[in-house]
């Protein structure tokens, strides 16, 4: 039995709650390049899963599949119905949402991908802010134009979010006027404003100058403490250990090993994990 075939898979650290996200047997090839062999993972509500692994191992592809940006060749992705408790915290899209279950072995409609995309919001490695829109416009675009929520309400919410990340005075600036760290905080605010059930971070700090990394990581940690459910791809092991409830090591398109962050980082069970951690901690 491989580690991922354990009864509940990744995310089973806490068994009292049904997982918010459950992925089974996710497969993806680009032409003849099999990028995801078979990925199983689960994220409970309010839990943080960190994905670590060498470059090219498929981490970004996993996130992109979760966000419906990539069409997997097989496997299932399930997102549970938004719990009604989320409505109180302003998280999630309210208690009315139903569960989304997509089986990629069958033919998948664009509608299903859109439904999947609806539940999660992604923070990109290179921020991907819209350069022709101001900070505020970047944040309200999705809620207003796509979700058709009232402009006044969305704007108030967006301003509150910008306030909290200390960017109120940049509301009318354009992305090119911001530092990388500020852009990434806007990227996070843009994701939050969508009121997703699940936040996806793809190496959110790897494009930042070292002195700007701290602000962004601190913000993500705060969000984790507030109970947002997240999947974070990161090379910041220290951060992953502190913030994540679970770490999964991805290599060659599968999850080689997963478990409690402190356990996994200190006593990796698999040779590949050990080698990866050794190289990361001893770059030269």
């Amino acid at each position, binding site marked *: 039995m491989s580690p991922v075939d354990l009864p509940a898979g990744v995310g089973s650290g806490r068994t009292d709650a049904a997982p918010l996200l459950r992925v089974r047997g996710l497969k993806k090839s680009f032409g003849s390049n099999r990028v995801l062999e078979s990925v199983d993972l689960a994220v409970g509500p309010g839990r943080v899963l960190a994905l670590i692994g060498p470059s090219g191992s498929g981490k970004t592809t996993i996130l*992109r599949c979760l966000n419906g940006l990539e069409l997997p060749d097989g496997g299932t992705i399930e997102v549970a119905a938004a719990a009604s408790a989320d409505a109180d915290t302003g998280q999630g899209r309210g208690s009315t949402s139903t569960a989304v279950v997509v089986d990629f072995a069958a033919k998948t409609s664009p509608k299903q991908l859109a439904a999947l*995309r609806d539940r999660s919001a*992604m923070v990109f490695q290179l921020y991907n802010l*819209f*350069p*022709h829109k101001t900070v505020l416009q970047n944040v309200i675009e999705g809620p207003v*134009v796509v*979700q058709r929520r009232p402009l006044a309400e969305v704007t108030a919410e967006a301003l509150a979010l910008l306030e909290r990340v200390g960017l109120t005075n940049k509301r009318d600036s354009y992305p090119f006027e911001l530092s990388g760290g500020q852009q990434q905080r806007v990227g996070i605010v843009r994701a939050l404003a969508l009121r997703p059930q699940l936040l996806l971070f793809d190496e959110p700090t790897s494009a930042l100058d070292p002195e700007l990394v701290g602000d962004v990581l601190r913000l993500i940690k705060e969000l984790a403490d507030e109970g947002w459910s997240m999947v974070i791809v990161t090379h910041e092991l220290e951060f992953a250990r502190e913030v994540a409830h679970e770490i999964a090591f991805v290599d060659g398109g599968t999850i080689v090993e997963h478990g409690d962050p402190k356990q996994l980082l200190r006593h990796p069970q698999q040779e590949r994990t050990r080698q990866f951690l050794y190289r990361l901690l001893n770059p030269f």
Partner: protein
Amino acid sequence: MIQPDWELFVNSLWPLLDGAVRGTIPLALASFAIGLVLALVLALMRLSSKRALAAIARGYISIVRGTPLLVQLFVIFYGLPSIGVLIDPWPSAIVAFSVNVGGYAAEVIRAAILSVPKGQWEAAYMIGMSRNRALTRIILPQAARVSVPPLSNTFISLVKDTSLASLILVTELFREAQQIAAFSQKFMLLYLEAALIYWVICLILSTGQGFLEKRLDRYVAR
């Protein structure tokens, strides 16, 4: 040395400018506007996953770019009547120039759309946009900014190319010059005067282009 006939120069200025204002400029503006719409449609067809659409657009662009504008103009004005399609000089000129601009600008717009980083599509999809909405709200505004310099060049070329319309009897700047020259027999003076006015118009346009580029350049994703 022949003394320039300054009186004729000054007296011709008004008819030539009149030709520019009532012929050259509206002809260029109308053809450019129609041509741009055509170009956008062609560019989107070229980028479409439907092979037939892409092939039609590719064929159109290839023909337009592979044949002289003068020939296109003559086919429409002098050729079509022989198969029973009679079009007046002005509409003929506008059709020919629009068709031509459509072919050239389509490639400019296509390249501009492709130059928008893939991450912009992804961010648009991520916030829940459909393909069409991503295109109109996120991609095209950025592509438009990238297109400004090359499209300005297309427009400046077009302004000069409208002089060809004189050959299908459209009254514009150059035809005015031809007529005065034929009457006064001062060919050098009149054609140089026409050249001077084209040059001034193009100078004004390139200055405008410079301003526009400066303003728009900043908001482009890199």
